């Protein structure tokens, strides 16, 4: 219960970063942090108290394993996040090339 709340705090910090920061790199950092929180939450949901990693061993049968499904999905989500982050960084670097700054206040020319 408490641990879930702390994860939500981490998510909130990340979203706060995206909304609050006026620097492109910091916005990307905010997204990465929020994503970390979601991934952590997913693993927490599948955790079993005193569980074992879901890898069988040749000698002894293991009964108390954690849920393997969230782990598989989180693996997928990590790689998706990496792809998105790389694209965001490439865009930010190109914008730096055009404007010479990462500061949003100096970049935003377009009207909302």
């Amino acid at each position, binding site marked *: 219960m408490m641990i879930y709340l702390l994860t939500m705090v981490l998510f909130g910090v990340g979203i706060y970063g995206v909304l609050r920061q006026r620097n492109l790199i910091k916005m990307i950092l905010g997204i990465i942090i929020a994503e970390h929180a979601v991934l952590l939450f997913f693993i927490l949901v599948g955790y079993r108290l005193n569980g074992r990693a879901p890898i069988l061993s040749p000698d002894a049968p293991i009964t108390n394993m954690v849920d393997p499904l969230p782990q598989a999905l989180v693996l997928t989500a990590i*790689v998706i996040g990496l792809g998105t982050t790389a694209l965001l960084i*490439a865009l930010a670097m190109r914008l730096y*090339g055009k404007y010479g700054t990462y500061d949003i206040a100096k970049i935003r020319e377009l009207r909302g």
Partner: protein
Amino acid sequence: MSKERTPGMSVIVKTVTRLTAWLIMLYGINIVLHGHVSPGGGFAGGVIIALSFIHLILAYGKEMVLKKLSEGLVEVFESTGALVFLGIALLGTTAGFFFKNFLPAGEPFHLFSAGTIPLSYIAISLKVWAGLFAIFVALVLLRIDKEQG
């Protein structure tokens, strides 16, 4: 800071890199091949292999690595990896279903077991390695000083 200075970092770094880069790569391949019996797998292994190349780039400078491994070649690897994975999935349709694991499951805990899983992992690692390396090279080659216009 003379012009004759070779690209990359100092001799110490280069020597250490020459020793470690291959170890890192071998470790990555090991992780890929044992993905179905131990933790790791195609993604982690692919990223580790990509990191070994990035390690070389960081130490030796981009020219030396790109001479051996051009960007076009990397793209070919990437597409091939993706196509092989899709091909494995499509071969499953011959056994009845898309993505059917059509090879026998084999003996557990052995390298050659679990049907198509190790093959898929090899294809994925090829794709992940090439994709990430392409991203890194693109971002390194990008001139990030202020452009004209």
